[in-house]
């Protein structure tokens, strides 16, 4: 069994345990069944923040060391971060529709800043696909990876800095505002999503490594069979 298969098996088991906790935790007295969405919404966005932090770290390390593995780490983490942000936005919209009576509000700082972060990292992926040269691609995306991470604290603290529909943090340095059973269920899901992130990262970086190796082989093979220029061919 390969390392990636083992990681995915552990992640699947952890996600199953997380789902069980999410579905058996007591519902909120006001929000009812909708409160269960917190078990997907919060872990996915926390992991998105972590993923974009790892992208920034990989980007800084690439700019410093110029080693391809840092570029693979940064790009893989950005792609997984976009997936988790997409899940966070979707779950938040359904939850908001039920609790606030509206799925979206462009005037809301938390919602809008999260959407901007989502589109900036989609742009990061688009940028990588638009450039063919691996060094140029790595340099441009590394610069964007370092600049874009500024959004993470802005999104996280937007509920404290601005007037917003979104509630403030449930877990603070002075304790939690959540009942213990709901908090445990959410934290179990945070652990499960973290294991999933590690498994996805292992698979995504491996795909990038294999594709880079294939590309190098194809380029070398392409050079080997490259036909001579007409000017180089003498009279036959």
């Amino acid at each position, binding site marked *: 069994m390969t390392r*990636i298969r083992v990681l*995915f098996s552990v992640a699947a088991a952890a*996600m199953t345990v997380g*789902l069980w906790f*999410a*579905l058996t935790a007591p519902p909120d007295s006001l929000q*009812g*069944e*909708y409160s*269960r*969405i917190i078990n*997907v919404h919060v872990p*996915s966005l926390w992991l998105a923040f972590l993923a974009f932090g790892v992208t920034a770290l990989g980007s800084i390390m690439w700019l410093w060391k110029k080693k391809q593995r840092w570029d693979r780490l940064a790009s893989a983490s950005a792609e997984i971060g976009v*997936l988790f942000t*997409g*899940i966070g936005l*979707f*779950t938040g919209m*359904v*939850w908001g529709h*039920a609790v606030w009576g509206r799925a979206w509000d462009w005037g809301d700082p938390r919602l809008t800043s999260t959407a901007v972060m989502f589109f900036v990292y989609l742009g990061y992926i688009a940028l990588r696909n638009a450039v063919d040269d691996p060094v140029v691609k790595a340099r441009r995306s590394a610069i964007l990876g370092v600049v874009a991470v500024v959004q993470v604290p802005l999104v996280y603290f937007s509920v404290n800095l601005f007037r917003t529909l979104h509630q403030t943090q449930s877990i603070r340095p002075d304790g939690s505002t959540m009942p213990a059973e709901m908090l445990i269920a959410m934290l179990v899901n945070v652990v499960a999503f973290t294991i*999933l992130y590690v498994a*996805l990262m292992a*698979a*995504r970086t*491996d*795909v990038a490594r*294999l*594709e880079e*190796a*294939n590309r190098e*082989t194809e380029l070398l093979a392409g050079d080997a069979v490259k036909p001579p220029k007409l000017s180089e061919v003498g009279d036959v």
Partner: protein
Amino acid sequence: MSDTAVVAGVFVISYGMIIAYSVYLHLRRRRATTRS
């Protein structure tokens, strides 16, 4: 639609997105392995 059905739908779609991405990575990795 009942609240339970909506919440169940949210879980199905969210987990579905994760599973779909995992399958996509698996297929891409298999294709890259075959070509190498």
